[in-house]
């Protein structure tokens, strides 16, 4: 054994000191990511410039002008409003629905386990492809959902192509894709709760609503917070579903941050405005993710401890 060991070691006797080893091990991963950090700083620079791809000659620093312009720019306020509305509605509904489903599936049984595995499938479909599936189902000439809508008297219900119902439609797709995420996290949380408090409550004949609100919910709170923040971070940045479904339309109904930034960059070629939008979105997600990481770390410690 020892002899094969010496063979495997580099013949030069080159050895990495114990102190350097961790740095050497993590360096390649870091280098790859640093290459990607540079564009981040470039984006900060862009956001302080007057920079249009169509007029490269007029490129110059205008300092905070891109940001100051937002205050008087109705399109920006629309972006902020739609993004917050989208994130708020999707996360609230997904949380309620996910919690409900997790409670229904809490008891371990063959049927419940099978259903919980089946419900994972929408989560594993690419959101852009999920949007495409729903696009086929809401097509006005053959979509099954358009047909079902006509059965209940909603003739010519136009789903994502009408400004009145576009938000509702993309929210529906988001719910379809991401509710299972909240469901499996909360289900894992529910099943990991200690059983004693529930047994004691059952012995004392405590009403079930009391058990739910005073025992289950408080003990589940760290899981609920983690799932909510995870979803909130993704949802406020949603791009795939909205872009694949409507490209931000009709009109500017669904121009959330990333869609608006994409259109600004590639269609109106206003790089400065696009970058400023993304920096604001980044500031929002950075604040949220700091809250998130603290909570998530606590939960992770606990998961490690129980493992």
């Amino acid at each position: 054994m020892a002899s094969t060991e010496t063979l495997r070691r580099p013949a030069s006797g080159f050895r990495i000191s114990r102190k350097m080893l961790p740095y050497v091990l993590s360096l390649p991963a870091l280098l790859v990511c640093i290459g990607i950090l540079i564009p981040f700083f470039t984006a900060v620079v862009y956001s302080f410039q007057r920079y249009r791809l169509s007029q490269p000659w007029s490129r110059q620093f205008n300092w905070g002008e891109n940001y100051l312009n937002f205050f008087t720019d109705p399109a920006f306020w629309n972006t902020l409003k739609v993004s917050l509305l989208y994130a708020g509605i999707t996360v609230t509904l997904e949380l309620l629905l996910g919690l409900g489903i997790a409670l229904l599936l809490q008891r371990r049984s063959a049927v419940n386990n099978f259903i919980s595995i089946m419900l994972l499938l929408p989560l594993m479909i690419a959101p852009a492809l999920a949007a495409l599936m729903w696009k086929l189902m809401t097509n006005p000439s053959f979509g099954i959902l358009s047909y079902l809508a006509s059965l209940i008297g909603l003739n010519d219900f136009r789903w994502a192509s009408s400004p009145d119902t576009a938000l509702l439609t993309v929210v529906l797709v988001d719910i379809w894709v991401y509710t299972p995420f909240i469901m499996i996290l909360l289900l894992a949380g529910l099943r990991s709760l200690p059983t004693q408090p529930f047994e004691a409550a059952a012995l004392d004949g405590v009403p079930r609503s009391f058990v739910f609100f005073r025992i289950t919910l408080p003990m589940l709170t760290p899981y609920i917070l983690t799932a909510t923040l995870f979803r909130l971070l993704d949802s406020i940045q949603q791009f795939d579903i909205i872009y694949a479904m409507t490209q931000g339309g009709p009109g500017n109904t669904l121009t959330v941050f990333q869609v608006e930034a994409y259109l600004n960059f590639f269609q109106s070629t206003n790089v400065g405005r696009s970058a400023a939008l993304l920096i604001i979105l980044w500031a929002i997600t950075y604040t949220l993710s700091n809250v998130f990481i603290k909570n998530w770390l606590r939960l992770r410690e606990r998961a490690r401890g129980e493992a």
Partner: protein
Amino acid sequence: METMSPLERALRGLALTLVVVFFMFPIFWIFLMSFQTNETILAIPPSVIFTPTLSNYAALITGKLQTAAGTLDIAFMSNLGNSIFLSVASVAVSLVLGVPAAYAFARHKFRGSEDIAFTLLSFRFAPPLLVLLPLTQYFQWLGLSNTYFGLIWVYQLICLPLILWIVRGYFEDISADVEYAYRIAGHSWFATFRKIALPLAGPGIAAAGLLAFIFAWNNFVFALVLASADKQPVTVGALAFVTSSGIQYGQIAAAIVLSVTPTLALALYAQRYLVEGLSLGAVKG
């Protein structure tokens, strides 16, 4: 758990049925559509009774589309090939880079280790376009535009944090004592890593790799911004497909079915690890 009244049992059953119908119906319906011709798809009322046809799949696989205007070429199979290559290569690179780093973070509390680990994690939460839009210009200067190399590099943003954080958790679960014992017996750290740590964390590494594959496969925005038609994966390709002329609806459905089958199969295979993976180790499944 206490016994349920018959009424409650029935209500629970009804609620679960509705849930299953809502989440399963779209998959079922698109699957059916993929075996239908335009005539049966456009029939009103829609029906689940039809003569199934494989013509949609045949058209996709041969890449030749018969339309009234003549024969059209479609590149869906090359999209599928791109998806496979980009995902497999990205995960492979991520594993090579990420597993040693994860080991370092798990075993050595060195200066700045938490900061570095969090910096890597923060990529998971940053808006992707913030990096992608400036990157389009850098890639032009570097000649990386529309290359597999460039795409695989950027895909590390998806795969690396996932691998790093999940695998780190698995390494932390292994008792360091086993490794010390092996090292005291006179083995190098590399032998310890290879013979003890890697095999013990093996299932976790495999699960992290599968999850990273699913995420890479499902990615849309990276390739939308950085790849042209010949390098695009299915997520971007299928979307372009919809707007091309002469396409039949059944063919779009068949393309979706082919595009989602790999991830669904892997998800079913690795479902035991999904909870841990999706929460980056915060919740044990």
